């Protein structure tokens, strides 16, 4: 009901409205009887005005009733609208501190600054005895005051500590935190004022978050501020999914949303603008379009880059940073079975030549080849990639011990093509790779050799090779191989018979590839195909890199940088000291810690609040870079209607949800206390009194 009273107890005074009626009837009971000399003039006068006076008497009584009712109602302090019993005695402001609140408004301020200013004005409009608290709601909900404060200058000054983040608002955690703080409020009920740009978000999970708030008896007021996010943005970035070789030309694809057709986007690497691409046209509904940059891989080391466009009113999403780690040299250990007929085993020599074609020049790969028996002595320390080529029974024994190394970030390329090793494959290799322990030997006659098909030409192994080169791969033939079940693994090549010929998968942090054939002429002629060499190199680079060493994490999430344990000089379970992370906005250093997990060690830092490159360091080394990026949710140009959020909150159990229609202090106070009707009632009483006097004089 929109009508409420601050002093409802005074409404009993409405009974006083009956006083004129009582007086009317009492006056009739106290009728005085007078024996008069002559009624002639009285009767004439009475006849003259009896009817008119009768009506006026009833009118007078009505006016007096109304006057009393108006005065009593005014004393009860009626308010139209607002919260029941008024509001604002304990007010908790939840200010959206997400990235979209950095939209620049027409007056030059950011929406967040305008929101903070508005909250300050709202605090100033609260009653003198009100208490306030505020939460900056970004990826985490951060209370701005240590405790509830009186709504005075101190509270308004403390608002200056509020910081906007580059992350997405977590409405659920904000509401939970609000519920927690509401329980500490000095008085009830608590009015929660949500000040936000109300970017579109998923409201389905609101029920659980709003429940505690509803139980705390809080009322919610929704205040929309700011402008919608402008459409232009760099939404996503696809870096080559493999380790890059310095000088290699690669293509970087970015998902962008241009402001206008034919808008230019650029790519910076290490501060130099190295590529440009044009987004042809915008898409219906603001869906991203893809642009491709052709980039030459930089030299070995850590690199930072940005993809961007000219800034609009939200510059934050107009650039997107990335970090790139280019390895200087990848150590490859080829462990092969005993050579047979002096021709080697499984074609390991071909592989060695494929990865390091010229041993005299420093390429990406440094290859060491040894019999698998020797591997136990040398170990895998320092090896980035292990290639097992027809390793046989020793390889089977090795596989049993290989799992921890793989899970910690190792890489393995396993090639099994000798029918005599079927049991080694089933009992050793396939269980290691979490594949079904089933392998069927397939041997085709010469005329029945199978062709292979590339499952995904866009896969990093095949990307950028060109359609003609890839088409040539289809000419290769396979006659002898193991048909295995791919399970959950990815299939890169598949034969005519449907059996996978090249599989890849992940084990912990490590990657593996399985070639269920070996590189002998009686098994396949793929070695003769010119495109096979780069495929092998790329496959090895992809396995070693664990994808690309470009870590892209949304702002608001924990920053995680996987690192080789040996690099930190600690053993599993031990803690590393002096780990730090530095990042935007002012390269402030924050402590990081080492987390041991199944996939190996990682350096972990608290969630970043700002987008950009964050640098992990140990005491005397740079461990790596992580690019914190604006969450895609903050780039959406759509906004929630305030009543949509209000409806969701109501359905979540919060009875009182008000939409503050306008960003104004008056609107806020009206929403809290409603429109004060007391003065109108007093004015009405005065007018009625004037009418009563006028009518009374006419009657008298």
């Amino acid at each position, binding site marked *: 009901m929109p009508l409420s009273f601050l002093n409802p107890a005074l409404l009993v005074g409405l009974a006083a409205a009956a006083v004129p009626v009582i007086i009317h009837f009492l*006056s*009739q009971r*106290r*009728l*005085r*009887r*007078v*024996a*008069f*000399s*002559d*009624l*002639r*003039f*009285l*009767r*004439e*006068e*009475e006849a*003259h*005005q*009896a009817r008119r*006076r009768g009506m006026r008497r009833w009118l007078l009584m009505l006016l007096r009733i109304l006057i009393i009712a108006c005065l009593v109602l005014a004393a009860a302090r009626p308010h139209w609208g607002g919260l029941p019993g008024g509001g604002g005695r304990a007010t908790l402001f939840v200010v959206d501190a997400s990235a979209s609140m950095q939209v620049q408004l027409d007056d030059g301020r950011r929406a967040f600054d305008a929101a903070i200013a508005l909250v300050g004005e709202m605090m100033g409009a609260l009653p003198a005895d009100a208490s306030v608290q505020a939460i900056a709601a970004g990826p985490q909900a951060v209370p701005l005051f240590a405790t509830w404060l009186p709504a005075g200058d101190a509270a308004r000054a403390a608002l200056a500590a509020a910081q906007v983040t580059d992350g997405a608002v977590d409405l659920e955690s904000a509401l939970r935190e609000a519920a927690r703080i509401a329980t500490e409020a000095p008085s009830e009920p608590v009015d929660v004022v949500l000040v936000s740009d109300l970017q579109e978000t998923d409201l389905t999970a609101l029920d659980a978050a709003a429940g505690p708030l509803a139980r705390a008896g809080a009322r919610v007021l929704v205040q929309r501020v700011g402008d919608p996010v402008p459409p232009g943005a760099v939404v996503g970035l696809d870096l080559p999914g493999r380790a890059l070789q310095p000088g290699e030309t690669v293509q970087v694809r970015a998902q962008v949303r241009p402001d206008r057709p034919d808008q230019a986007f650029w790519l910076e690497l290490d501060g130099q603008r190295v590529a440009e691409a044009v987004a042809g046209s915008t898409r219906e509904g603001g869906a991203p379009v893809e642009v491709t940059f052709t980039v030459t891989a930089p030299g070995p080391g850590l690199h930072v880059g940005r993809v961007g466009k000219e800034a609009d009113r939200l510059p934050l999403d107009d650039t997107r940073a990335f970090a790139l780690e280019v390895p200087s040299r990848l150590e490859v250990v080829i462990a092969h079975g005993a050579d047979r007929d002096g021709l080697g085993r499984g074609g390991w020599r071909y592989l060695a030549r494929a990865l390091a074609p010229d041993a005299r020049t420093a390429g990406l790969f440094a290859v060491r080849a040894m019999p698998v028996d020797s591997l136990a002595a040398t170990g895998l320390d320092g090896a980035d990639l292990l290639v097992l080529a027809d390793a046989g029974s020793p390889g089977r024994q090795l596989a049993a011990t290989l799992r921890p190394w793989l899970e910690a970030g190792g890489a393995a390329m396993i090639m099994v093509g000798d029918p005599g090793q079927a049991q080694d494959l089933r009992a050793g290799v396939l269980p290691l790779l979490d594949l079904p322990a089933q392998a069927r030997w397939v041997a085709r006659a010469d005329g029945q050799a199978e062709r292979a098909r590339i499952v995904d030409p866009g896969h990093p192994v095949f990307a950028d090779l060109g359609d003609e080169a890839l088409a040539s791969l289809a000419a290769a033939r396979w006659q002898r191989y193991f048909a295995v079940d791919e399970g959950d693994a990815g299939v890169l090549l598949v034969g005519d018979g449907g059996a996978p010929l090249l599989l890849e998968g992940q084990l912990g942090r490590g990657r593996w590839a399985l070639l269920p054939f070996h590189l002998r002429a009686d098994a396949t002629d793929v070695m003769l195909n010119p495109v096979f060499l780069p495929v092998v190199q790329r496959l090895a680079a992809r396995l070693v890199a664990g994808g690309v060493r470009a870590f892209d994490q949304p702002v608001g999430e924990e920053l995680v940088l996987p690192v080789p344990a040996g690099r930190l000089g600690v053993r599993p379970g031990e803690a590393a000291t002096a780990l730090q992370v530095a990042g935007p906005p002012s390269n402030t250093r924050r402590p990081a810690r080492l987390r041991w997990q199944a996939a190996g060690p990682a350096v972990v830092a608290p969630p970043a609040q700002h987008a950009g490159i964050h640098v992990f360091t140990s005491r005397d080394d740079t461990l790596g870079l992580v690019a914190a990026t604006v969450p895609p949710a903050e780039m959406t140009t759509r906004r929630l209607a305030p009543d949509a959020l209000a409806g969701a909150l109501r359905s979540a159990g919060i009875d009182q949800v008000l939409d503050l229609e306008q960003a104004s202090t008056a609107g806020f106070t009206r929403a809290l206390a409603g429109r004060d009707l007391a003065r109108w009632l007093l004015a009405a009483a005065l007018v009625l009194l004037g009418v009563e006097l006028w009518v009374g004089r006419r*009657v*008298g």
Partner: protein
Amino acid sequence: MNAEQELLTPELTSQLDRLDVLARLLVEGFLTGLHRSPYHGFSAEFAEYRRYQPGEPATNIDWRVYARSDRVYQRVFAEETNLRGTLLLDCSASMRFTGDERRPTKLAYGRVLAACLAYLLLRQNDAVGLVAFDERPLLRVPARSVRRQLFQVLKGLREAPAGQGTDLGPVLHDVAERIPRRGLVMLVSDLMDEPDQVLSGLKHFRHRGHEVLVLQILDPREVDLDFPGEVEFSSLEDPSLTLRTEPAHVREGYRDRLDGWRARMRRECRRHLIDLVELTTDQPVGAALGAYLMKRGRLH
């Protein structure tokens, strides 16, 4: 206490004793008295000295006073004649009204007033009679000038019954026909009747050669209708007639109507040379009577 003592208090008597009762009218009569007469030379009596005003005839200047005091005074004479006065006392029910228990009813007030007039007249050796009436004559005391007449008049005033309705016109016509000689007719009444009938009766007296003095008595509350709250009025003359009203609401209109009525009575009386004296029961009887007689004295 006899009737005379009941009606005429010593206070009232002493007030009237200081005044000369000067009848305005010239009537034919046999007795000389204090009243000036149109018949000059029949009898004259010194009345008072008055300062001589330039332009007046020097006939009456008292030269002896002038010799003694060096001031010019003239002697004023009043010729005396006999006056036959008839007091008409309205005893109708409306005369029983009083708006305040501390004040007399109009009838009681009228009785005192009539007694005063009778006293004054008899003191001048005039003849005075009494007719008490309501819708009809209730009591008659023939006019005589003997000393004992005062007792008779006062007795009549005391014994006059309180009547019922009012029908002034026929009663006045009746009385006018029954008064054998011209004289002074003094009507003590509230005149609460149809004005045309009342005036018709009064004109009848004039037609018969009488001088008419109307003493209209009203209660102050009849004039101002000052009753608080809601009142149910009932008519004294017809108790079956009632009226329920709030006097505050009808007061203004009532006063207008009353004033109109009184103005008409004044106008008509003046037109027919009838003296109308309006009195209310909150005015002292002696003061009111004295004021009237003083005014008559200045006029004649």
